């Protein structure tokens, strides 16, 4: 079930009614769990078995990990959990990719190996719920939090429908305590949640699908060399589309959870206002960045074992982070490019820090305009990375880069005036909005304006949602 569908609106209405009836807290939690399974089964019912398997295995393994004192047995249990979770992810998400690469390798060394083409369907949200359960078992191994006492609470933590399919990726301490005591939304939470849900749907349906998806698809699906104007417009359109699509989903998820009285962590914080790339990763898909930092970068050594090891850990984290997004080498290059940016940024920052006193740092604080220009530069460089993220092949990515940098001698004009106009209006408005909201929260701003102004903006969003009539298209991050 997708948030931008009539089914979900009806589903949410039923859940809200059930959640506010005078049932016991346990009954309400059972309702939420059953609702979450229905939400998931509405895609492909058989895949719910995987979700159950993952839940049951990690509940018991997590508890055993916490209580087990024998280090060997403890490690063995951790390996069981890692193999279970990552094995499932590898089979469903990377099975075809591994096989293709294996075939390419065997053919390259002269072995004529042509297996039957596998037909593996990717279960929705597997990358997200695998990371959710993995962080639980790793935390249990490290004894960083206590095991969840009841199977019901743990199942709900893994399956809670607002975050199940595309995040935010939640940690046990962020959500499990909220299930321990009765939760119902206050009137303020309910209205805040509905406002966020409206905003998220507006971002997805009107801006991502209605304004930008068509141009991004046209440019990236084109087999022709394009003019620089068309190529850049397509890349800008995609950078807007992926932000509005994914941040829209996260905003809906946070809003829906809030309507039920639960708080989910923030996942986006105006990433296109980032000054530099470490800042970008603190603003883009924040829960994934934090997950990769805590469960990959730091275990790899982080910055505790010297500069070289730090650079290695950083690059490996970004490469694997890239691969998490999709089973294709283009995603690995996307991650690698971000890793490279982070290397350069770190190198420059460390160099400056070594030669500067605290007074120098304060005295040399750049002006707002200079900071804005840095943010623009960051945005432009991130756009280059999106080329690899969106292109299905390196040939296409290279063709796009050639078109963007004017290397195409006879580029084709592709986008219509109306398509260009949408990009010219939406993208600068998005960048400006990110810059102006950089250090603010959307709900804080909503509370600062007068009720009638907020009402006008809110109704404009809903009316545009109705007018767009773009319901039910899938979210991009579902495929990851």
């Amino acid at each position, binding site marked *: 079930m997708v948030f931008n569908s009539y089914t*979900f609106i009806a589903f949410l209405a039923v859940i809200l009614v059930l959640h506010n009836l005078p049932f016991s807290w346990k009954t309400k939690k059972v309702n939420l769990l059953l609702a979450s399974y229905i939400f998931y089964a509405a895609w492909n019912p058989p895949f719910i078995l995987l979700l159950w398997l993952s839940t049951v295995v990690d509940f018991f393994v997590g508890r055993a990990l916490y209580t087990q004192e024998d280090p060997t047995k403890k490690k063995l249990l951790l390996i069981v959990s890692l193999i279970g979770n990552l094995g499932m992810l590898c089979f469903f998400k990377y099975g075809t990719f591994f096989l293709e690469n294996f075939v390419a390798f065997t053919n390259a060394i002269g072995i004529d190996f042509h297996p039957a083409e596998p037909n593996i369907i990717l279960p929705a949200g597997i990358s997200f719920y695998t990371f959710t359960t993995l962080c639980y078992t790793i935390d249990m191994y490290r004894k960083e939090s206590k095991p969840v006492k009841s199977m019901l609470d743990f199942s709900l933590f893994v399956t809670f429908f607002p975050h199940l399919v595309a995040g935010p990726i939640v940690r046990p301490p962020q959500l499990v305590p909220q299930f321990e005591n009765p939760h119902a939304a206050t009137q303020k939470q309910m209205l805040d949640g509905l406002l966020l849900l409206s905003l998220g749907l507006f971002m997805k349906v*009107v801006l991502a699908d209605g304004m930008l998806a*068509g141009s991004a698809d046209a440019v990236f699906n084109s087999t022709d060399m394009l003019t620089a104007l068309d190529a850049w417009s397509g890349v800008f359109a995609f950078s807007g589309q992926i932000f509005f699509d994914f941040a829209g989903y996260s905003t809906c998820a946070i809003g829906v959870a809030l309507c039920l009285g639960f708080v989910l962590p923030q996942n986006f914080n105006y990433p296109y206002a980032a000054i530099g790339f470490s800042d970008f990763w603190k603003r883009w898909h924040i829960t994934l960045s934090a997950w990769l930092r805590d469960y990959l970068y730091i275990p790899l050594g982080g910055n505790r074992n010297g500069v070289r090891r730090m650079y290695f850990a950083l690059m490996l984290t970004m490469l694997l982070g890239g691969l998490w997004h999709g089973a294709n080498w283009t995603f690995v290059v996307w991650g690698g490019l971000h890793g490279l940016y982070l290397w350069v940024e770190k190198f420059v920052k460390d160099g400056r820090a070594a030669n500067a006193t605290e007074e120098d740092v304060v005295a040399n604080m750049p002006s707002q305009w200079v900071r804005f220009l840095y943010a623009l530069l960051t945005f432009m460089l991130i756009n280059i990375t999106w080329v690899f993220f969106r292109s299905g092949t390196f040939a296409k990515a290279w063709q796009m880069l050639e078109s963007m940098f004017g290397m195409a001698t006879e580029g084709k004009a592709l986008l219509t005036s109306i398509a260009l106009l949408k990009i010219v209006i939406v993208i600068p408005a998005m960048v400006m909005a990110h810059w102006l909201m950089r250090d603010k929260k959307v709900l804080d701003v909503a509370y*600062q304006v007068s009720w009638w102004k907020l*009402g006008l903006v809110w109704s404009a969003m809903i*009316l545009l949602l109705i007018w767009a*009539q773009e319901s039910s298209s899938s979210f991009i991050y579902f495929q990851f």
Partner: protein
Amino acid sequence: MLQKSISKAALFMVALVVLTTIGIEIYLRTHGVEISYDDGPPLWSDKRAMVYEPVDKSVVFIGSSRIKYDLDIPSWESLTGCHAVQLAIEGSCPRPALEDLANDPAFKGRLIVDVTEGLFFSNAPSNLESPSSNVKYFHDRTPAQRASFELNRLLESQLVLLDKEGFSLNARLDALELPSRPGVFMMPIFPLDFGRGTFERQQYMTPRFMADTTLQQKVIGVWNFFREAGKGRPPMPAEALAAIFQSVKDATDKIKARGGEVLFVRTPSSGPFWMGEQKSFPREKYWEHLLAVTGCEGIHFADYPAIDHFVCPELSHLSPTDAVVFTRHFVDILHQEKGWKFPKLP
């Protein structure tokens, strides 16, 4: 702003949304706009699921836009007493749908294939895209998508403004027809009154379209645009054409082997359009050869005095009143000449 104020904002929003929606709905209805259903993959899939009805309860139609305009479904159903399952898709080649039905062992019914030669014998990706994506959608659709379709149907049956092709934000922006840079392909826009759609997937022209020759000329202009765009393309190689005939034969053989029945129909066109089609797609080489290769029955409008005289308002599709007449004669031909039996015509 206090909590009380966000409640006020929410109430203000609800009032504005409800009033604006009602206002637009009333405006459209007072301007004579009628309900038209979004003819996307969900509606197509809803009809595709009906092909498993008993043989005497339904006839399946595939093809391009002509059969959608020319077959008047209420007339068909009242004359025959069986459903018309309309699976034709505008501007597209019906072969992917034919292959889908042929490869579906559960389909054993009666199939009528509308042949618009320029589309039926096309291998252009643009003509194959819609039917292929509809077929894929049907086979992949999730329980959630089915539920959304039912809810959407409920809303669409009540609100004129829910018409994606006519009144959505992008449809209105496209209708501005802003000129683009030289070399940019711009899909021509059909007037809203040319194609309204029923839940049964019948297309029809509105009375305003029938009365307004400017609108009719605009559609003729669209046909001319496509004709000009196709000029200079090399003719289809003989091997490619032969492969098409073979694929159609394979598909019809599969259906017939299961006890199904396939009949081809060439629906009317008129004036210079019909003359151009005769020139580009000589009957001997295409229509007659199709019937000979597949061994299926066919009904060509030019062979029957009762249906050979229609004047299409925009040269290619029948008016709603002519569609009723055409359907009546078409049922007669099927029953009397081709021996088809229907619950009301045993």
